[in-house]
């Protein structure tokens, strides 16, 4: 009995020390905090001529093959200004957005420069996380940028995003499946897709990225072309109009006729590109960014076998083009806004644009466009010049961003499953769009519109 009691006390000590140890460790963690704010550093630069010597600039960036190339310009800026750039985070677009949203919500913003995008920045503005750029970029600084692109980063009369590069979609069509030429209207497109499917066994007439924001965007494109609108002037849903029904019916009719891959409702950007390079698709709208991959014989079966054209028109008599641009913003929480602006200027400079243009990325400065179009005249690729001219034309005239509201993603989140239902034939177009409109209206009202 006594042995038991003595041992019990030893147990007690064991247990207490274990938990005590854990508590001590935790205390140590809190005692030595990791820095969570951009450090406020004394102002006087140590070396004359190097404005930000000794300071650190923190950046929250997007990563990926296309995007990383530009970051090679950073060392030059560091050399010039004496500052150091620290990459706080790098991830793909949606991950980056998710983090930004969380940081703005939790107040844990510890970086100065943040990746931004025309579709996403509105929510950051609403969350009061960004700093207006008008004070840091003069009219001269902005003169060289294509207006349509620049405007896609403006809200409430202020500029929030400095454009880096944009993307827009054009019609890609095969030259070896019996197509006479690019479709002029969406009705032509539909007929052409059906014909291609019939005449070429194993090939689908067309495809669309069939889920999430991608599907909403593709629907939005066609909706606009047919003269419709996503939201009306009071920000209430307007997509369940005849134009909307016509747009989505095209999708569902193509699907039920077997002119689209049966699992397209699970496709995202990578999947549609894969189908295309494996030669399974006749024509479809695709981003310019894929071009070099499509023309690379080592990875693409359709290299040299396709052409590009402006998007077809619809009842609305416009050429549509779902567009967006990537850029940079300055966080409100930043303590080094001047330094942030300096880096952004450097990255979006002519040199920066030229670097990205070499990769076939669609940059935003008019002067660089003029330059590369001229250079393309001597290219061995017959499509090179046409591609660039088409891109800049679309940027000037067909650049349509989704509504620049913070609720774009929530709207898409409500809409796309219903669009899928219509495509798959589970719901009738009008009924589905009406249901979506009711839900979106409820959401928008709840958001204060």
């Amino acid at each position, binding site marked *: 009995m006594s*042995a*038991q009691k*003595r*041992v*019990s006390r*030893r*147990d007690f000590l064991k247990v207490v020390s*274990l938990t005590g140890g854990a508590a001590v*460790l*935790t205390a140590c*963690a*809190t005692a030595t*905090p*990791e820095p*969570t704010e951009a450090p406020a550093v004394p102002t006087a630069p140590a070396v004359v001529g190097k404005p930000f010597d000794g300071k650190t600039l923190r950046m929250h960036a997007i*990563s*990926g*093959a*296309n995007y*990383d*190339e530009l*970051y090679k310009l950073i060392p030059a800026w560091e050399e010039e200004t004496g500052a150091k750039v620290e990459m*706080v*985070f*790098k*991830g*793909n*677009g*949606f*991950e980056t957005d998710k*983090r930004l949203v*969380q940081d703005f*919500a*939790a107040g*844990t913003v510890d970086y100065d420069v943040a990746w931004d995008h025309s579709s996403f920045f509105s929510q950051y503005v609403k969350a009061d996380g960004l700093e207006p750029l008008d004070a840091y970029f003069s009219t001269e600084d902005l003169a060289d940028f294509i207006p349509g692109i620049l405007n896609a980063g403006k809200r409430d009369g202020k500029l929030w995003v400095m454009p880096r590069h944009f993307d827009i979609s054009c019609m890609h069509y095969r030259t070896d499946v019996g197509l006479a030429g690019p479709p002029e209207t969406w009705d032509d497109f539909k007929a052409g897709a059906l014909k291609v499917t019939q005449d070429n066994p194993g090939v689908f007439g067309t495809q669309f990225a069939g889920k999430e924001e991608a599907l909403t965007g593709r629907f939005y494109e066609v909706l606009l072309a047919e003269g419709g609108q996503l939201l009306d002037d009071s920000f209430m849903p307007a997509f369940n109009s005849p134009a909307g029904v016509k747009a989505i019916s095209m999708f569902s009719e193509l699907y039920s006729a077997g002119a689209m891959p049966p699992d397209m409702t699970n496709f995202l*950007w*990578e999947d549609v*590109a*894969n189908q295309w390079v*494996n030669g*399974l698709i006749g024509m479809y709208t695709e*981003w310019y*960014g*894929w071009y070099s991959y499509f023309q690379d014989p*080592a*990875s693409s079966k359709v290299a040299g076998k396709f052409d590009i054209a402006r998007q077809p028109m619809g009842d609305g008599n416009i050429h549509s083009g779902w567009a967006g641009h990537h850029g940079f913003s300055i966080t409100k929480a930043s303590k080094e806004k001047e330094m942030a602006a300096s880096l952004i200027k450097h990255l979006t400079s002519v040199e920066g644009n030229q670097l990205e243009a070499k990769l076939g990325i669609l940059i935003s400065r008019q002067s660089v466009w003029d330059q590369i179009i001229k250079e393309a005249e001597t290219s061995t690729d017959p499509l090179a010049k046409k591609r660039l001219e088409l891109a800049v034309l679309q940027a000037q005239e067909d650049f349509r961003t989704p509504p620049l509201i913070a609720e774009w993603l929530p709207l898409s989140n409500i809409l796309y499953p219903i669009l899928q239902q219509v495509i798959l034939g589970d719901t009738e177009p009008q009924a589905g769009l009406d249901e979506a409109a009711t839900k979106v209206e409820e959401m928008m009202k709840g958001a204060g519109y």
Partner: protein
Amino acid sequence: MSENPSWKGHQKARRRKDLLNEIFLWIIMLIFFIPALWIILTSVRIRSEILAHPPIWIPSGFTLDSYKILFGMPTPEGAFGLGGAIPVAKYASNSIVISLTATLFALVFGTLAGYVFSRYKFKGKNFIFLGLMLARAVPGIALSLPLFMMFARINLSDTKLGMTTIYIALTIPFTAWLMDGFFRTIPKELDEAARIDGCSTWGAFVRVDLPLVLPGAAAAGIFAFLTAWNEFALASIITRTPASRTFPPALFEFTGQFVSDWRGMTAMSVLMLIPAIVFVAIIQRQLLAGLTSGATKG
């Protein structure tokens, strides 16, 4: 006995059955293994063959390019999407440290808890047990944002300590349950016998009960380790920089919005496999050792 002809016949039949059993088992395991094999194979494939249509079964050649690029070594094919060397060593060390530490603590705390559940009845026991069940039922994704906000406030965000603590909490319930089950297989008479022999409760625990549940502890250890090793939802939110980033979120970094880099993903997955296999192999020996002693005690 062995000269009995019917016994010999019985032995022969048994051996045949054993052989059939073995063959059948290996076939099933092969089926299970195919997807895993595909992943490993992809990591050594030539780039153009990875997403080929129709899928290429027999690769025309092997290449270690995926791994080379992962470690930042030059290859003709060029870098992955991440553009630049990936801090693989850091991810590895983070994952290993966090997972091992979490497993250790979870085993200790969980085994003690399991012992208590199996042997004692006290006020609030059901409540605590249900509490553990509740903790288990909550997935990472539901915890992620609140936990992130909490951790950010106490400066544990993006730290190895923070992640370790989270994983301990995540794996204790299951460990406790499993150990509870194993402790119950030990008849109480053994405990009593030990105590009569002069052991204290603790002594009985350490000398009698613990060795008998080693297979269970091994199994629990394996699961705890793998849970921590492969956990994604919480790791992707709480860790931000290579200071504390583990493998699973690093893996996800290969999935761009537009392109997933299969080479990087599969190469990293194979790298992730290696410590997992090593750990499991080591613990397994423990499992076997514990079993033989347990069987004879029976």
